[in-house]
């Protein structure tokens, strides 16, 4: 059985009294596009640097393995990794081709081989060698520098490629293009990618699996679908996509549902799950796209309903958000598909009475954090 590309086993990293990474464990399979997602300060960059070798794990038994081998004490240049830095870290005094050749020169690759490999690397990132090889990094645009940084890393045929928020400084259009290119490269080359970002859309787009980190720990690890559709905690639900949150206490059971009473007399039903009992507090998340808006007298039977007043209608292009305010709860946002406001506008105006409703199974019961 081949070992995973990367294994973290109860790894911690402290700076002084603070733990930046607190006993995290996860594996990355070979060839996987794995993202670590989280807000600033959650520990994702430290995790990346632990894998790179710029930080050493606390000596409390935690292990970092690459391709089955423990690498806790190995320097970065002793690991089979390559890295793309946040600000690209291109050597300003070297031309593009010498930047890319740097790693090959350090490995004493024969001169004759270097030129060919550099040209191939430039092709891989879609930069023409004739135009770009001799240029200085200062003469390149942000996107071009990014590609050179990528080429510099990939030319070494690493087992694992580390990417530290590489698309942050690039404009939206180019960013989306690059996301797809990176994903394609990952599949084409079979190299394992470890991608660190705070942009959840990016992570969802590109990754095979995502580890969501918060406060030095992994909050949830799973595929994009799992993370998005079944967020386990309020943090994950809030960080990925948008959510409406409701609290309540389980009162009693009705067939396959629990009856829950929330604040202000709101009642709704949730699916029965093990581990829940009457009298317990629950906390649920309902994504805007799982809700719909109805006139108070037109709510379909069997759905959870909360009556309120339309507070705002927001135009987002692809979707429309209808924000409904109800007494005793925070505003509820409902996402509806935009079928063309010019030909088929929504009937909702500010101040209209409206009821939001959702099917009882379309919610996510959250764990305590």
């Amino acid at each position, binding site marked *: 059985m081949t070992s995973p590309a990367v294994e973290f086993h109860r790894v911690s990293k402290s700076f002084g009294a603070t733990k930046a990474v607190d006993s995290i464990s996860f594996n990355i399979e070979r060839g996987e596009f794995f993202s670590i997602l989280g807000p600033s300060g959650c520990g994702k960059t430290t995790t990346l640097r632990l894998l790179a070798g710029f930080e050493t794990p606390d000596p409390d038994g935690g292990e970092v393995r690459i391709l089955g081998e423990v690498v806790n004490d190995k320097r970065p240049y002793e690991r089979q990794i390559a890295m793309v830095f946040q600000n690209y870290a291109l050597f300003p005094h070297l031309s593009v081709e010498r930047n890319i050749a*740097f790693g090959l020169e350090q490995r004493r690759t024969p001169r004759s081989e270097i030129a060919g490999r550099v040209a191939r690397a430039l092709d891989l990132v879609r930069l023409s060698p004739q135009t770009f090889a001799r240029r200085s990094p200062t003469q390149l645009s942000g996107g071009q520098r990014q590609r050179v940084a990528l080429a510099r890393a990939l030319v070494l045929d690493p087992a694992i490629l580390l990417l530290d928020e590489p698309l942050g400084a690039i404009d939206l259009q180019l960013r989306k293009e690059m996301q797809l290119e990176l994903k394609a490269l990952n599949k084409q080359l079979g190299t394992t990618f470890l991608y660190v970002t705070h942009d959840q859309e990016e992570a969802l787009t590109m990754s095979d699996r995502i580890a969501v980190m918060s406060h030095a720990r992994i909050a949830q690890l799973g595929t994009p679908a799992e993370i998005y559709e079944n967020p386990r905690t309020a943090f994950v639900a809030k960080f990925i996509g948008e959510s409406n949150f409701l609290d309540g206490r389980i009162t009693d059971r009705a067939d396959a549902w629990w009856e829950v009473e929330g604040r202000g007399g709101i009642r709704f039903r949730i699916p029965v799950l093990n581990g829940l009992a009457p009298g317990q507090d629950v906390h649920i998340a309902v994504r805007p796209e799982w809700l719909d808006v109805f006139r108070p007298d037109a709510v379909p039977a069997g759905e959870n309903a909360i009556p309120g007043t339309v507070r705002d209608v927001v135009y987002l292009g692809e979707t429309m958000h209808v924000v409904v305010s109800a007494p005793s709860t925070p505003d509820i946002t409902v996402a509806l598909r935009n079928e063309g406001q010019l030909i088929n506008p929504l009937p909702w105006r500010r101040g209209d009475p409206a009821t939001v409703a959702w099917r009882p199974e379309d919610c996510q019961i959250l764990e305590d954090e």
Partner: protein
Amino acid sequence: MTALDMPPQAAGPRSAPGNGLRRRALAWLAPRPQAQAWTLLAPGTVWMLGFFLVPVIVMCAYSVMPRGEYGGVDPGFTIEAYTRFLHPVYLTILERTFVLAVATTVLSALAGYPVAYTIARSGRWKSLLLFLVVLPFWTSFLVRTFAMIFLMRDTGLINSWLIAAGLRQEPIPMLYTPFSVLAGLVYGYLPFMVLPIYASLEKLDPALLEAAEVLGARPAARFRRVTLPLSAPGLIAGCLLVFIPSLGSYLTSDLLGGAKELLIGNLVQNQFSTARNWPFGSAASFILMIVVLAAVLVYLRLRPPDTVRGW
């Protein structure tokens, strides 16, 4: 919008007389960015003109006039001063001064780079260390030079300590040797080498070194291929800042060298005092200035054109 643009004045309380003139002047300047630039440059320009350009011109003129009997110059034109300089004695002096300046620069670079490197990596001690480097400037150059005499004399601190510790029987003759002159010059000019190199190293993005490490570079290779080339502008600037003043130095060689050798600075000083030969002194100064200009030209050629990160 420039700093000189003022918001429109409402009908406020009348201020002191002369305010009208100021306002009119500013109003006149507002749409003329060139005039604004010249106004701001004026004090510095006047200073440079008055205290540099004019004296240099006067010196130039003196160098081609016949010498007066008791000093000064008589009216006339002659290039005797310049042809006199071509005598082997004076050319040797120029050469010797040049060699000394080069030696000072090289030694300062060798001594100064490690110091700058250490300071750049010293985290929270940076300010203190920089302060210590600059501290000697708070004392007079002459006093510092005399301090070196007290250190290096046969009966000075170093020899006394060596003999007292039993490491030597006889004192080491350190003073009045080429060694003491070099030591005095390097000591005096070292901060000029350390500070520019430090500034250059400070700007070095640490991510570059990390990138190099990931790409396989061990510490020595990282230094050779990343740190050193990127600190080159600072190093070159430091060399220039040491080379040019040490070309003109004369006090140090007099005090620490026992006045046994003449440098160009001493020669020029002699011409304006004992020898009362102002034209020759002016010519020697001018020739020295040409050498300095040549050095600056070399610097302009050497400086990498694109890596102007602050230098």
